[in-house]
């Protein structure tokens, strides 16, 4: 399984899966932070825009449908919603325009330190009309949930009586190893994946070129065949084995772990990030009264199962029929790094 949207696209674009023998199957997991963001977050952003707040975001969030609307639709209705390349651009918008400006803080550990640094700049420059609506997520807790490692004291079991089934184990899901995200790993380092060998699962940190992916797959298969369970760094030109301590420090200065909801995976303890008390002034949820209804799941959409690697996109009844890149129903089709979008585009 790979858990990085950029790997999803790189694999499908290169067509590597067509070169593999029938005994090897590449599965996409929850690798796209946009795709794992629940509907509720979009609903909150829409509610903010409708209050007249300037909403700034990475571009791929704009077309994601919430329970009733999307930011793109709201922008077409005249609300002030802007795509930005960097949270620093959002800070500049706030500083230049003087209106209340919110940045949608979405991403994994590659992006979290970037947003943390922008938050520090906001306080340093005393830009008071800037705040963050956070939905940051952490990769290792999601990997643990996928292979059903209990988080802390809580076992990976749903509450009794909900009718839901237990999280599948590595054996249930048939996962033999992980292709690990390149730039997330550049921040968190190899040590963040120590739980994988303990569960007899090899992991390879990989770059994004076709050659990187093929050599990483070879390493995974070699380890699997020899019964060697290690984490290996196959992207040393960018990833130091111990990651980037400075980035982690900046992240820890501004954010702390919090329980979070993942589309498809449900609630995972300590898998998200929230602003620490010293940065609470930047929390849009504390600054604004945001009213959203509880969303009901969209009929037929199987993004959740796609994100857990339980099905390939074509098994979703909506795939490429009701749900297409030009009129997506679920985030896996919206995001350029979602599995469904990659599958439609590259086959």
């Amino acid at each position, binding site marked *: 399984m790979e858990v*990085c*949207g*950029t790997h999803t696209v*790189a694999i499908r*674009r*290169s067509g590597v899966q067509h070169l593999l023998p029938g005994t090897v199957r590449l599965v996409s997991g929850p690798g*796209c*932070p*946009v795709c794992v963001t629940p509907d509720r977050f979009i609903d909150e952003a829409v509610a903010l825009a409708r209050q007249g707040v300037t909403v700034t975001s*990475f571009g*791929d969030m704009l077309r994601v449908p919430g329970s009733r609307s999307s930011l793109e639709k709201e922008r077409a209705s005249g609300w002030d919603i802007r795509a930005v*390349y*960097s*949270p*620093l*651009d959002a800070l500049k918008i706030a500083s230049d325009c003087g209106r209340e400006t919110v940045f949608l803080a979405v*991403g994994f550990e*590659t*992006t979290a*330190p*970037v947003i943390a*640094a*922008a938050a*520090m*700049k906001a306080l340093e420059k005393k830009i008071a009309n800037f705040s963050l609506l956070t939905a940051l997520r952490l990769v290792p807790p999601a990997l643990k949930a996928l292979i059903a490692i209990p988080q802390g004291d809580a076992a990976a079991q749903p509450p009794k009586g909900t009718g839901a089934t237990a999280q599948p184990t590595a054996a249930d899901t048939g996962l033999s190893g992980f292709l690990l*995200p*390149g*730039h*997330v790993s*550049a*921040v968190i380092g190899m040590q963040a994946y120590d739980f994988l060998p303990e569960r007899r699962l090899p992991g390879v940190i990989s770059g*994004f*070129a*076709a050659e990187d992916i093929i050599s990483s797959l070879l390493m995974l298969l070699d380890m699997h065949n020899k019964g060697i369970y290690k984490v290996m760094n196959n992207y040393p*030109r*960018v*990833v130091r084995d111990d990651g*980037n301590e*400075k*980035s982690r420090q*900046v992240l820890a200065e501004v954010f702390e772990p919090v329980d979070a909801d993942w589309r498809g995976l449900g609630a995972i303890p300590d898998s998200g990030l929230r602003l620490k008390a010293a940065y609470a002034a930047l929390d849009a949820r504390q600054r604004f009264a945001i009213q959203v209804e509880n969303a009901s799941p969209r009929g037929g959409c199987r993004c959740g199962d796609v994100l857990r690697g339980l099905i390939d996109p074509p098994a979703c009844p909506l795939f490429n029929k009701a749900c297409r890149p030009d009129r997506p129903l679920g985030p896996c089709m919206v995001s350029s*790094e979602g599995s469904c979008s990659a599958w439609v585009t590259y086959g």
Partner: protein
Amino acid sequence: MCLAVPMQVIEIKGDMAVVESAGLRRDVGIMLLDKVKLKDWVLIHAGFAISKLTHKQARETLAIFEEGRFFG
């Protein structure tokens, strides 16, 4: 999202730097890395330098972009 671009540091201004690649220049934050120096090659993501590369590594990565092998 992870598509970070190698660029070279041509000016340092406190915790920001001007980086350049293929004639394009950008102001980026460098506070996520230790000891960034002029002429260092860094990987840029969402307006910040997130990692350093050697000159050779940067050239190899840029060659992949230029050949279009990554973009297909």
